[in-house]
């Protein structure tokens, strides 16, 4: 009997050790500096709130930590869309002025691989800037750093929440340098292509409400987009 107990305890310790190894794997999750940060081209930056309640509308399967907003919005409960979040939000410039509308779709990717520290989300942005035109951003995001540094500590906390200062790039591809692909649809952006990086800054997170204080940014390299420098 004592051998069986020793085996069970050993297996439990082994499982915990394996999870600790996966979560705190020093070789995974840290991508460092975004390639656009060292670009000498002008950047167009859009800011948005990462808090669902601050968006125009946010919906998902209704059972996730992040609650749909407004409360009566139609939820995505059907199997093919159950692992998808959809958000419609305002985009503002560096001065906080509303300059556009952003619609984002995010779906959990089957490329997710915990061993490599890849919590992959396939996402697209449809960006509408009145007076200027429209843009489409295609990207794969890696949420591993955010999950490991923000969400997991919140779950381990006795208060079921996390407070701190976390910043990181979410974009991990499909560009060769880990950047998103951008194509212009209309207006001054029509037919133009560019690269982009989406990043996130988190200050508070709750396991009951989801993001409490999270800001998002989309930086688009302007090189091929517009000849002038009147970026917001």
């Amino acid at each position, binding site marked *: 009997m004592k051998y069986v107990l020793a085996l069970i305890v050993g*297996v439990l310790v082994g499982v915990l050790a394996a999870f600790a190894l996966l979560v705190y794997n020093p070789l995974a999750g840290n991508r460092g500096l975004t390639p656009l940060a060292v670009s000498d081209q002008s950047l167009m930056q859009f800011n948005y709130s990462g808090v669902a309640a601050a968006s125009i509308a946010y919906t998902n399967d209704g059972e996730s930590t992040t609650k749909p907003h407004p409360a009566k919005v139609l939820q995505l409960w059907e199997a093919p869309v159950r692992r998808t979040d959809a958000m419609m939000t305002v985009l503002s410039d560096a001065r906080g002025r509303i300059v556009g*509308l952003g619609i984002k779709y995010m779906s959990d990717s089957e490329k997710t691989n915990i061993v490599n520290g890849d919590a992959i989300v*396939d996402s697209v942005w449809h960006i509408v800037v009145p007076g200027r035109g429209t843009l489409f951003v295609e990207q794969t995001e890696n949420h591993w750093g955010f999950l490991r540094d923000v969400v997991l500590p919140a779950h381990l906390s006795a208060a079921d929440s996390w407070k701190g200062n976390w910043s990181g790039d979410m974009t991990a591809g499909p560009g060769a340098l880990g950047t998103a692909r951008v194509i212009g*649809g209309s207006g001054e952006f029509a037919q133009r292509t560019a690269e982009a990086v989406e990043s996130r800054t988190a200050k508070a997170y709750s396991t009951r409400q989801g993001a409490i204080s999270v800001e998002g940014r989309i930086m688009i390299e302007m090189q091929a987009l517009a000849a002038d420098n009147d970026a917001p």
Partner: protein
Amino acid sequence: MFKTFIFGIVLGVVGTIVAVLFVPVVDQARENSVVTVATNGGSAEAFHINIPTDRIVVGAPGDTPTLPPGLTWPDELSTASADMYKLRNVHNAVIGVASRVVLSDAEQGDVVEWVLHLPARGSLYVGMDVDNVQDGARLGTLHRGTREFAKTQGAFSERWVAGDSNDELNRGKIELVSRFMSVAEQTSAVQ
């Protein structure tokens, strides 16, 4: 007993790693794609949106009614409107989400664009030609496809199909049809 304990640890570590490697963390549910061969090559696929049951968001400026209740449309976006829907295939199964944006611009003219997002397959970014309406359908072109649609080009159409005027839950549907061709196929067709 100590050796058994150590064996248990090794078993636990190896078992967890193997489980994480071979059990998929994400397995998106799929509906069979209903694709037909288009007349002049390529493939055609039809989608539709039931109105009003598939409307997720109706966002518009001014006094236009919005959906869901409680949604507030920013004053700064007075020249834009955007709707978001659930997207269905010809078998009436929900397979994705879609949004339609209308941008009114006095200088550049009106812009109508769709983004269709099919979680297991990819996304489509389509620009509609506002003035190009044939047989009740507005025509447009694919600006960009992602993943499964990455190497495709082609045309797209939207059409309103009226339903039963006496049935509040069946006012009609928006019919969307894609006619895409792979880039390689299109190149060889031109040659």
